[in-house]
C-alpha cells in the first residue's frame, strides 16, 4: 500500500451519483487521491466499498469519513419508499391530499396533482384538538388510539407519520401519540411533525412529515449497513452524512432526521463552492454563482458571504418540504437540449435528447441538433472529447443534423450553431437573473463557478451575458462534490415558533427559547462526542412586517439591552436589499427562532507540487469567434503549469469536461489546480 496513504489522519469523502460513485481522500500534507466506481443501484454500499478500494487507503487510518448519499432521494423519486400510515387530527384527514388546492399549470384544464405518497385509506384520524395558542381543547382519546393500533395499524405499515394541528406550538399530543404507538406497535418508526418541521402551515408540515417517514426506514437501513461494512474493514471513525443544509452530522443523528439527508448528494456542488470560496475569496469577495450543467439540466446554487444560500422551504418532485436546504434551482437546459423550429421560430430546449439517442454527434441514431452538436461544429469541443462514451464525436453527423433547420431559416450552418449556443446561454443567464434579482443579489459582484460535463464550456459566455468578470473552473472536476464534502462543516439546525412584536418582546423569554434550542442541539452533538467542543453558535430570527406572510431570516445579535432595536434595523436593511423598499413605520414581528451550531472542518492543506514552468499545447484546432475561424491551441489540464497565463481562444481538455476560453479572456491555473479565467482589460 502506498506510504502516503498510510499516513495517520486520512480524510475520506464519498459521493454517490447517478452513474458513478466518487471518492476523494487527503492526508495531512495536502495530497489528494481520487477514485471512481460504478454506482450499484441495488445495493449502494457495494459501489461505496469499490470506490474506497480504488482509493487504496487503510481504513484503520481514517479519521474522518463524510458521505453524500442519494439513498433517500432515489427512494422518493422512484417511489420505492416505506409503506406509511398518516395520523391526523379528527376532521382533517384530507389536508394532505387537498394540499393548497392550487393549479400551478395555469392554462392546463387537465392538470393533476402528483399522486400522494400516502393514499386516503392509509390516513387515520385521532380525536384530539389543540388551539392556535397551544391550549388543549380536547385531550387525546387514548382508548380510541389503542383500538386503532390493534385493529388498523398493526402489521400493515413500515412507518407512521403523525401531524396534528398546531403541534408546532404544543407538541404534547404528538408525544402522547408516540408513546402509545411505541407501546402497542413496538419497532415501527414514528415520525412526529413537531420534530421534523416545528413550523406552522399544516399542509407543508404534513407533507414534510410524510416524506420523512417514507424515506426513514430506507435511509436508516442503508446507513446501518454501511457503518457495519466499514467497521468490518477496520474503520473506527464515525460515518458523517451530508445533510440538505450543506453541513454534516453523524449517521446516528441522520437516522433520526432522515428527511434532512434528502439532498445529501446534490448539495455537494454548493459545498465545493464554499470550499473554493475559502481558497479563492480574494477573486470573488461577494461570493459565487455555482452552475452545474450536464446533459439535460442546469443547476444553479449560490455562495454568499462564504456560505451556501439556504432556503427554508423547497419542493422535490411536487412534494413540499419545510426544512433548511441549500437552494438549488434546476432549469431544463443542457448539452442534450434539442434545437427545433416551430411556428417559424427557433427554440432550444427544454426538451432533451437524453442519453439515448443523445446528441446527433454521439452517432447513436440522433438526428436532431443539440447544444453539444452546435459546440462541436463551432470547434468549442474537440471530437476527441468522448462525451458520449469511448467513441469520438462525429463532426459530420453534427453538421448534417443542422441542415434541416439551416434550410428552413436560411442560415449558414456555423451561424445556426452559434445561434443555438447563444440561445441556450441566454436561457441560462435569464434563469440566473430571475434567481438573483429575486434575492436582491447583483450577479456582477460574483464570480461564476462552472462544473459538470458542459459547464466549463459555456461558463465564459454566461459570464459575458451576466457581466461577470471572473470564472472559476475548479480542480477535481470529475469528483467535485466529494472534494467539497471532504471540507464540509459539521452543522445542526434547530428552530421553534416564537411570536411577538419586535421591541416589545420579553428578552428573557426569547433568550430562554434560544438556550433551549441550543441545549437540544448540543445534546445532539454530544452523541458525536468528539464534536461537542469548539462549536460556533448562531441565533437567527424569521421576521416580517405585521400582516405579511413571508419572512426574512436575520441573524440576531446577543441578547443585550439594544438587541431588539438592532435586529429591527438589520431587518429593515435586509428587506431593502431584497425588495428595493422597506417600511420603517411598520411593526415587525418574529415568527420563528433558529439556531445553528457549526463545528468548522479543516480545508485541504495547500500542497506544493513540483512546479512545471511552462506547458505547450497538445494540439491545435480552429474555433468560430462569431466572425472568423481562429487558431485555437488545445491544452491538457494535467500538464498545465501553475501561474502560466494562456490567452483565449484556447481549450483545456480533461477527461470529464472541456473548458473553452474565447478571445478576450485569459486563463491561469491557481496553485491548487483551479482554473481562473478573467476578462482581459
Amino acid at each position, binding site marked *: 500500500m502506498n506510504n502516503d496513504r498510510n499516513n495517520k489522519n486520512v480524510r475520506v469523502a464519498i459521493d454517490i451519483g447517478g452513474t458513478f460513485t466518487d471518492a476523494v481522500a487527503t492526508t495531512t500534507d495536502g495530497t489528494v487521491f481520487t477514485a471512481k466506481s460504478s454506482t450499484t443501484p441495488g445495493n449502494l454500499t457495494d459501489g461505496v466499498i469499490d470506490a474506497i478500494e480504488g482509493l487504496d487507503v487503510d481504513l484503520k487510518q481514517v479519521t474522518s469519513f463524510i458521505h453524500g448519499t442519494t439513498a433517500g432521494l432515489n427512494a422518493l423519486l422512484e417511489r420505492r419508499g416505506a409503506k406509511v400510515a398518516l395520523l391526523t387530527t379528527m376532521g382533517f384527514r384530507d389536508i394532505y391530499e*387537498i394540499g393548497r388546492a392550487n393549479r400551478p399549470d395555469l392554462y392546463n384544464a387537465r392538470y393533476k396533482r402528483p399522486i400522494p405518497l400516502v393514499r386516503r*385509506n392509509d390516513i387515520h384520524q385521532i380525536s384530539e384538538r389543540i388551539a392556535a395558542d397551544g391550549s388543549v381543547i380536547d385531550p387525546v382519546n387514548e382508548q380510541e388510539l389503542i383500538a386503532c393500533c390493534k385493529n388498523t395499524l398493526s402489521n400493515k405499515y413500515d412507518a407512521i407519520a403523525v401531524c396534528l394541528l398546531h403541534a408546532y406550538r404544543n407538541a404534547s399530543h404528538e408525544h402522547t401519540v408516540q408513546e402509545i404507538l411505541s407501546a402497542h406497535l413496538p419497532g415501527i418508526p414514528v415520525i412526529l411533525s413537531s420534530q421534523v418541521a416545528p413550523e406552522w402551515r399544516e399542509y407543508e408540515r404534513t407533507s414534510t412529515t410524510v416524506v420523512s417517514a417514507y424515506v426513514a426506514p430506507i435511509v436508516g437501513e442503508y446507513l446501518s449497513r454501511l457503518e457495519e461494512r466499514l467497521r468490518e474493514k477496520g474503520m473506527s471513525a464515525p460515518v458523517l452524512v451530508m445533510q440538505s443544509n450543506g453541513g454534516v452530522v453523524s449517521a446516528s443523528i441522520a437516522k433520526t432526521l432522515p428527511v434532512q439527508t434528502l439532498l445529501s448528494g446534490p448539495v455537494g456542488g454548493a459545498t465545493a463552492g464554499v470550499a473554493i470560496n475559502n481558497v479563492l475569496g480574494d477573486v470573488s469577495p461577494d461570493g459565487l454563482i455555482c452552475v452545474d450543467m450536464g446533459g439535460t439540466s442546469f443547476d444553479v446554487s449560490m455562495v454568499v458571504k462564504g456560505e451556501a444560500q439556504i432556503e427554508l422551504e423547497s419542493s422535490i418532485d411536487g412534494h413540499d418540504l419545510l426544512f433548511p436546504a441549500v437552494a438549488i434551482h434546476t432549469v431544463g437546459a443542457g448539452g442534450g437540449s434539442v434545437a427545433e423550429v416551430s*411556428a417559424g421560430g427557433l427554440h432550444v430546449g427544454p426538451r432533451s435528447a437524453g442519453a439515448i439517442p443523445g446528441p446527433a454527434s454521439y452517432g447513436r441514431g440522433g438526428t436532431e441538433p443539440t447544444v453539444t452538436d452546435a459546440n462541436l461544429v463551432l*470547434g468549442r469541443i474537440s471530437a476527441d472529447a468522448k462525451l458520449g462514451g469511448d467513441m469520438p464525436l462525429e463532426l459530420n453527423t453534427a453538421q448534417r443534423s443542422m441542415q434541416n433547420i439551416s434550410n428552413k431559416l436560411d442560415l*449558414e450552418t456555423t451561424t445556426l450553431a452559434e445561434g443555438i449556443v447563444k440561445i441556450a446561454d441566454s436561457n441560462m443567464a*435569464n434563469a440566473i437573473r*430571475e434567481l438573483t434579482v429575486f434575492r436582491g443579489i447583483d450577479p456582477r459582484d460574483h464570480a461564476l463557478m462552472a462544473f459538470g460535463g458542459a459547464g466549463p464550456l459555456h461558463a465564459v459566455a454566461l459570464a459575458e451575458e451576466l457581466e461577470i468578470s471572473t470564472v472559476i473552473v475548479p480542480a477535481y472536476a470529475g469528483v467535485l462534490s466529494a472534494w467539497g464534502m471532504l471540507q464540509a462543516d459539521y452543522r445542526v439546525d434547530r428552530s421553534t415558533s416564537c411570536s411577538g412584536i419586535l421591541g416589545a418582546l420579553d428578552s428573557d423569554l426569547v433568550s430562554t427559547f434560544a438556550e433551549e434550542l441550543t441545549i437540544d442541539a448540543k445534546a445532539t452533538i454530544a452523541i458525536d462526542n468528539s464534536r461537542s467542543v469548539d462549536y460556533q453558535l448562531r441565533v437567527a430570527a424569521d421576521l416580517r412586517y405585521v400582516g405579511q406572510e413571508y419572512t426574512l431570516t436575520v441573524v440576531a445579535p446577543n441578547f443585550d439591552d439594544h438587541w431588539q432595536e438592532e435586529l429591527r434595523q438589520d431587518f429593515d436593511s435586509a428587506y431593502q436589499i431584497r425588495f428595493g423598499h422597506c417600511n420603517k413605520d411598520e411593526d415587525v414581528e418574529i415568527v420563528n427562532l433558529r439556531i445553528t451550531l457549526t463545528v468548522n472542518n479543516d480545508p485541504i492543506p495547500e500542497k506544493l507540487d513540483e512546479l512545471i514552468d511552462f506547458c505547450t499545447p497538445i494540439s491545435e*484546432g480552429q474555433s468560430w469567434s462569431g466572425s472568423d475561424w481562429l487558431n485555437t491551441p488545445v491544452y491538457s489540464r494535467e500538464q498545465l503549469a501553475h501561474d502560466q497565463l494562456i490567452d483565449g481562444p484556447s481549450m483545456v481538455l480533461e477527461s470529464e469536461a472541456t473548458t473553452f476560453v474565447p478571445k478576450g479572456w485569459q486563463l491561469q491555473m491557481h496553485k491548487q489546480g483551479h482554473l481562473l479565467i478573467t476578462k482581459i482589460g
Partner: protein
Amino acid sequence: MNRPKSNSNKQTTTSQADPITVEVIRNSFSSIAAQMNQNLARSAYTPIIYEMKDCSVSLFDRNIQLVGQSSGLPVFLGTLGPAVEAVVDTFGIEDMSPGDVYLLNDSYIVGSHLNDVSVLSPIFLDSMLIGFGASKAHWMDIGAKSPSSATDSTEIYQEGYRLGPTRVFKKGIPEKNVIDFLTRNSRLPKAIWGDLQAQVAACRTGEREMAKLYQRFGLEIIDSASEQIFDQSEIAERAAVAALPDGTWQSAGNLDSWGPGGEIVPVVTTVTITGDQMHVSLEGSSPQTPGCLNCGLQQTIAGIRLAYKFVIEPGLPITAGSFRNLTVTVPERSVFDAREPAACQHYYPHIGLMIDLFLNALSNAAPEAVIAGQPGDAMNIMLTGKQPSTGELFVSGEATGVGWGAFQGGDGSNGMITYGGGDLKNFPIEVQEHRFPIRIHEYSLRPNSGGLGKWRGGLGLIRRYETLSEARLSTWFERTQTPGRGLFGGESGEPAMVTVDDGQETWSALKCADVPIPAGTKITVATGGGGGFGPTHERSEHDIENDTLMGYTTQ
C-alpha cells in the same frame, strides 16, 4: 479539419432581427415579466396577493403591444393593455417622465371589480419611451360600503373609490395628495400603502431590465423581433384552430342569482369555427343585473381568451400576436359589458360559467381537448368582525376549491381552485385560526360529489367553521342551477351547499351579505363536484374498487 467557410459579410445593415436574436429577445421579455411578478408577490403586504396570487403582470412595447406577461390569476390574462391605453389617452406620452407611476381601477375600463388596482409606469431608455410595465393586484379595502367589499351593492358607487387614470408618482416622487386620498378612504390604510409600494417595485424592476434589453439590442432590432414574435404566435394559433372542424355550437346555462334574493342569470355561449378563425358570441346572455354580478367588457374578453387558451396552444407564451384569429360578440349593457352605474363586485361567476359553456360547446369539435363541466366559481366565504383582544377590525376572506370535470383518459381533480384562479392557494387552517377568532372543525373531500362516468368528476370540498366571537358573514356560492355537467353520457356533479347553525336555527346561505351572527355559530360549506366523462357503465372495475377503497364514493 475542414470547416465550412462562413461569409461574415452576409449580415446586412437593415435592422432585421435574425431568428436567433428573436428567440433571445422573446425569452428575455418573458423573463422580465417573471422577475416583475416575483418581486410583486414576495413584497406585497396582504396575503391575497402574496399567498393567493391575486395579481398579474404585463410588459408592453411603446405601441402598447403585449410582449411578456406573468400571471397569478389566469383570468387576468391580457386585461392590462386597456389600462395602459387609458393612461396614455389621458396624460399623453409627451407629459410622461421617467419615474412616473399611474394607477386606475375603473371596472368599465379594466373589467374586473374596483378592488383590482392596475399600477403602471412608462419605461424610458435615456429620454426615449420604449414601453410600459404594468401590474394588477387585489387591494383589500378601498372604502366600499362594507369592509373589504360588498356583496349586496347595486351601484358601482357603493363599491369603493373608482379611479380613472391617476398619476401617483411623478418623476419618482410620490403624489402626496393622491396617496393621502387612497389611504384615508380605506379601512386598511397600511395595506394600501404596502401593496402600492410592492406594485411600484415591480414596475421599477421592469423599467431597469427593459432598459438593459433595449440598450443591448437597440430599438429597431427589438421592434423587428417583436413583429416576428407576434407573427409566430398568430401562425401557431391559426394552425391549431384550423385543425378543428368548422361549425357552430351553442351551450347555455343559468347562474342561481345575481345576489342574495336575486333572480337567475342566463348565459349563452356560441362558438363558431371557420377555417383558422374562431368567433365567440355571448348573445342571449342576461342584461346587466341590478346586483353586483357584472363586469366590464375587458374582463369578458380576458375570460374568453382564457377559455380559448385552454384548448388552443396552451403551452405557448401569450403575446400581442395571440388571439388575432379570435373575435367576439358581446351584447352592450349585458352582464358581460356592464355600463354605469352597474355594480361589478362579483365579476367572475358568469365568466366561470361562460368558460364552462365554451368547453361544453367545443366538446363537439374537440372531444379530446375539453373537460366535462366544472361548477366553477370562487366559492367565497368572508367573516368580518372585531378582534376580541384588541377591538381591531378583522377580515377573513377565502376562496374554496371545487371538483373539476373529468376528461378523456382521466378523472377530474379533487378540490382545486376554479378556472379563473390558477396558483391561488387556500388559506392554511393554522394561519386562519391564529389570526382570527375562528375555529375550523373539518376540511375534507366531499364523498360522492363527483359526477359518475367512465371517468369520474372530481370531488368538491367541505370546510366547517365556528365563530369564537360575534361576526358578520358574507357568502357567495353558485351553480346549483347549472352544476358540473357530465359529458358524453357522464353524470353531473353535486351542487354546492352552505348551512349556518347559530344555535337557534339552521338556514341555508348560498349567498348572503354582511349577516350578523353570534359567537358559536357553525357554518358548513360544501363545494360542488365536477361532471363525469363517458357512460358510467364503461368505468373499469379497478376504478370502481379504488373509489370505494379510498372512500371517494360510498354506498
